[in-house]
């Protein structure tokens, strides 16, 4: 391949800009730190003040400002919407910012180094945990897969990562926490991790390496030296965190609003126990059916939550609903089509079946114990 160096640049090089703004240069290091800390703390205090007063605000807005009569379905729908929408968006912004900063410590290169050559069980556990904190986008599933497998990460361990990364994500956790409380969010995260660990381990045990496309093994992946950005400072990390908020919250907020609006409508207008006969604990077939319907479906976490909320509030069993949510977010037809570039069909089918079976087990387990 041609690698022309090109002509030297026409513009003379300027000295690199000073690392701090003009207002900052007069301050000492310690003063700057104090200023920054004050900003962070007052921001956090303002956030907390607004967050804790949302419910009072929603009540005031609905019944005083709009003058609606308490007890009518419309008033309860409006109050629900005015409370939930800002609450979830505020939580989302906070957590995405935090996770954005956390992710600056975990690059795929570092994760791969940690996982290369690990024994199976330990590798599966580690890969699932790293799947939660390593930045991941299903559009780079293929380069990531090749990068992992060709540098000695076992196939099953790679799968643990590929299952955990999309299924357990910050948007899903925030929405579950905001709308259903920390117990449901923790259950989702815990069982999601277990499914990723066990399914990856099973895929590894089945010795399916021959169903990986041949060209993957012939590709010599580069050594994956991480980007040459130099050491990151805390203000770099904060900037990347803000980028993540802009990027993710900017993308999902319409889904969140529509979802909460739908939830508000169902909350107030659809009769209680409407879903109980179809998706309640009594209907044993509802868990596998929910998973079979959920696997090919694709939605981001923000899009699926309103459905989850609607189902739950109308009498569907928690296990059934969580199983549905996991199969929609964790497995999807588009991702499998992308993975088809590196995996042969029998491996994709095995992978989907093992994960699907794990989700079914979790669904039954919750329905039985809760």
């Amino acid at each position: 391949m041609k690698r022309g160096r090109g002509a030297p640049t026409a513009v003379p090089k300027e000295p690199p800009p000073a690392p701090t703004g003009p207002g900052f240069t007069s301050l000492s290091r310690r003063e700057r730190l104090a200023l920054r800390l004050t900003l962070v703390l007052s921001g956090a205090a303002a956030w907390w003040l607004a967050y804790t007063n949302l419910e009072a605000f929603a009540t005031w807005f609905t019944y005083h400002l709009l003058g609606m009569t308490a007890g009518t379905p419309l008033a309860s729908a409006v109050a629900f919407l005015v409370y939930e929408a800002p609450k979830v968006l505020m939580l989302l912004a906070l957590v995405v910012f935090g996770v954005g900063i956390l992710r600056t410590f975990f690059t795929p290169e570092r994760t791969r180094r940690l996982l290369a050559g690990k024994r199976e069980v330990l590798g599966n556990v580690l890969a699932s945990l790293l799947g939660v904190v390593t930045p991941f986008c299903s559009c780079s599933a293929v380069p990531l897969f090749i990068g992992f497998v060709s540098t000695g990460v076992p196939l099953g361990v790679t799968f643990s990562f590929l299952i955990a990364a999309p299924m357990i994500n910050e948007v899903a956790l925030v929405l579950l926490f905001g709308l259903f409380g920390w117990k449901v969010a923790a259950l989702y995260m815990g069982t999601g991790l277990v499914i990723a660990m066990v399914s990856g381990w099973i895929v590894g045990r089945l010795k399916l390496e021959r169903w990986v496309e041949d060209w993957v093994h012939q590709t010599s992946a580069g050594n994956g030296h991480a980007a040459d950005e130099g050491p990151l400072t805390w203000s770099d990390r904060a900037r990347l965190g803000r980028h993540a908020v802009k990027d993710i919250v900017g993308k999902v907020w319409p889904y969140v609003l529509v979802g909460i609006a739908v939830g508000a409508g169902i909350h107030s207008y659809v009769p209680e126990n409407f879903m109980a006969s179809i998706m309640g604990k009594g209907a044993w077939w509802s868990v596998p059916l929910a998973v079979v319907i959920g696997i090919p479906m694709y939605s981001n976490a923000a899009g699926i939550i309103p459905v989850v909320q609607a189902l739950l509030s109308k009498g569907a069993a928690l296990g059934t609903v969580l199983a549905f949510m996991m199969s929609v977010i964790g497995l999807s037809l588009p991702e499998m089509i992308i993975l088809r570039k590196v995996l042969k069909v029998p491996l994709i089918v095995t992978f989907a079946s093992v994960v699907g079976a794990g989700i079914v087990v979790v669904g039954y387990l919750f329905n039985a114990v809760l």
Partner: protein
Amino acid sequence: MRIEVLGTGCPKCKATMANAQKAVAELGIRAEVVKVEDLMEIVSRGVMMTPALVVEGQIKVVGRTPTVDEIKKWLL
């Protein structure tokens, strides 16, 4: 100067391409901006998360869209 954008066509890759072209235009320098879409080529560079931006053979950023200002800094 040679600037490469590594990516298979996701929205972020397109945004990176646009930012790189904008940075070159704003600086008024001579540089060719190329897109590398071949998966094997991307992987052999050691890139596991797209998009990535490569300036003169050096990987500058992986897995996110750099801003125009960031790219300008790397080009000077």
